[in-house]
């Protein structure tokens, strides 16, 4: 997984605040993120509030757009995906203290494609992105 965003590329940041499947917010976010990657832009995603549930492993919706698989695709194509540690801890995702080697808070339940991280992960996206979109928060 590519962790560094090349500085010359324009970067789109996207924040998700609502859980997957309860609304289309996650769908819209993922589709727009994939489109941006297709067009050669950098993509950074931050999962916040109930949005952290999008990091859950083994999502298997019978008939809905699979958000988990979309995030895996996004990460494979170079998107950086982080999620809020405070929100993740509240919801039972975090096992342990921050791990310097893997640069994340460890989790047995979250997909590898998503790094559980401090809120400052989002704060720096606010600054470094060319454009910022939010989904499910308003």
């Amino acid at each position, binding site marked *: 997984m590519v962790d560094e965003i090349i500085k010359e590329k324009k970067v789109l940041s996207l*924040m998700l*605040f609502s859980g997957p499947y309860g609304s289309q917010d996650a769908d819209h976010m993922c589709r727009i993120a994939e489109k941006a990657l297709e067009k050669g832009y950098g993509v950074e995603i931050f999962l*916040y*509030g*109930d949005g952290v549930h999008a990091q859950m492993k083994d999502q298997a919706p019978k008939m809905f757009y699979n958000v988990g698989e979309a995030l895996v695709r996004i990460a494979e194509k170079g998107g950086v995906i982080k999620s809020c540690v*405070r929100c993740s801890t509240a919801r039972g995702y975090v096992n342990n203290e921050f791990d310097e080697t893997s640069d994340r808070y460890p989790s047995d339940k979250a997909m590898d494609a998503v790094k559980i991280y401090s*809120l*400052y992960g*989002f*704060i*720096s996206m*606010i*600054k470094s*992105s060319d454009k*910022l979109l*939010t989904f499910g*928060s*308003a």
Partner: protein
Amino acid sequence: MVKVVIEISHPPFGYEHTFAGLYVASASLSKGYDVTVILRSDGVYTGRKGQIEPMKNINLPATEDLVEDIIELDGRIIIERSSMEMRGINEDELIDEIEVMDTQDIHDIILDYGEKVVAF
């Protein structure tokens, strides 16, 4: 310096949105960003002072403390007059240094200070 507008439209306590927005505001201020918080719609309830021990009463942190932190860090907090009026909130109920503004002026703030806009 990046200019961020954080707009909060949900009431404090009943939803996570207010905490989420205020945390983003104070974390952004700690990084030296220019931050404007706009309270509109049900978000105006967060502008009221005098919360009585929310942690003891309902097991939630006081949003009033977070608002005061933001003001102390030189964040700007603006509240929409029309939303206040609809909800029967008078200016004397507000936390000090919150600015009451009309909707059109708030739109100007968003257009002028919202390089990045996060709506909660």
